[in-house]
């Protein structure tokens, strides 16, 4: 892994701003990270039932917390090959990435892109959506182990469980799975369907639960 020079904590906060991650998100993910294993995590996957629930945001927050709070080396691995967005969000090169690594056309050092202290990312690369299943096979076949050797913890930005053809297959590779549910958006039957599709059942992180009602009304209505 590219070793990034030691950066004081206050400069890491500056990176938060670059990520566009609000403090509330980091706080919620910090307690989530603690409850699912904290510094003992080795491979954590972030998934959801459908798209648009906040998977990438939570994956980035978990990676940042592992790097900043526990001083661990983190690799953020993008596995959503159908809809890659990590490169654009973190202002990284879109390729080479996981696809090139799995196909053997690029070395590990070429695909690992540092973006903060103890933080590196592997983007999806130039993969075709149809090649997703093959890339996952390559990951199982040893590529994932090679990635794990580069870091203390691998945070995987997984595809959604229901709407992606290989979402369940990808989720099985994570030791600890976190499923993001967008409050007020994801229907409960879809949530149940997604949770039933993976084993063991994932930890649930609700995204966007607070009411927009005024505080006095929330008190009055007990919400």
């Amino acid at each position, binding site marked *: 892994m590219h070793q990034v020079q030691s950066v004081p904590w206050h400069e890491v906060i500056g990176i938060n701003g670059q990520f566009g991650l*609000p403090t*509330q*998100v980091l706080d*919620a*993910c910090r*307690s*989530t990270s603690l*409850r*699912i294993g904290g510094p003992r995590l080795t491979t954590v996957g972030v998934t959801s039932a459908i798209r648009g629930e*906040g998977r990438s945001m*939570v994956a980035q927050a978990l990676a940042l917390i592992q790097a900043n709070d526990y001083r661990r080396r983190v690799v953020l691995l993008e596995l959503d090959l159908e809809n890659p967005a990590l490169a654009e969000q973190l202002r990284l090169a879109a390729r080479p990435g996981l696809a090139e690594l799995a196909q053997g056309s690029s070395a590990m050092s070429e695909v690992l892109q540092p973006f903060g202290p103890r933080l590196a990312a592997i983007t999806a690369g130039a993969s075709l959506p149809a090649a997703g299943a093959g890339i996952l096979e390559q990951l199982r076949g040893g590529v994932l182990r090679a990635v794990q050797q580069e870091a203390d913890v691998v945070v995987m930005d997984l595809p959604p469980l229901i709407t992606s053809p290989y979402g369940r297959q990808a989720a099985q590779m994570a030791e600890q799975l*976190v499923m993001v*549910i967008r*409050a*007020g*958006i*994801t*229907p*409960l*039957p879809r*949530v*149940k369907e997604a*949770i039933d599709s993976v084993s063991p*059942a*994932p*930890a*649930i*992180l*609700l*995204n*966007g*639960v*607070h*009411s*927009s009602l005024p505080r006095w009304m929330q008190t009055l209505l007990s*919400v």
Partner: protein
Amino acid sequence: MRPSTNTSRPTRTSARQARSRTALKRTDDLARTHYEDLVQKLDAAKLDIAAADQPGAAGFRVIDSPTVPYRPKGFVKLAALAAVGGLVAGLFLMLATLLLLTALDTSVRRPQELPEELAQRVVGSIPRLR
């Protein structure tokens, strides 16, 4: 030449009388014609009255022809009623739609809304960001 004068006087008188008679006769003819016209009109009017007095096929007769009003009777009242009615109906429709959407909404908004077996798996919640 005197006798000739005497003989021409009656002749002139008779000619004047003849002209007067002719004029009177013409006046008389015109008056008669006018009278006959008036008599004919009177007969026609009597016939019309008689026809109007007869009941029609529907069993009634039209005394005064109807006219189309240029705007509804009580227009302002009707407009106010329509506005209030529309407002009330719209309010009910909105409430019904709201209730229906709420009833059909199966999305999870709070951890408490999850079934117990799922609620136990909730490890955190991110507030809604504005």
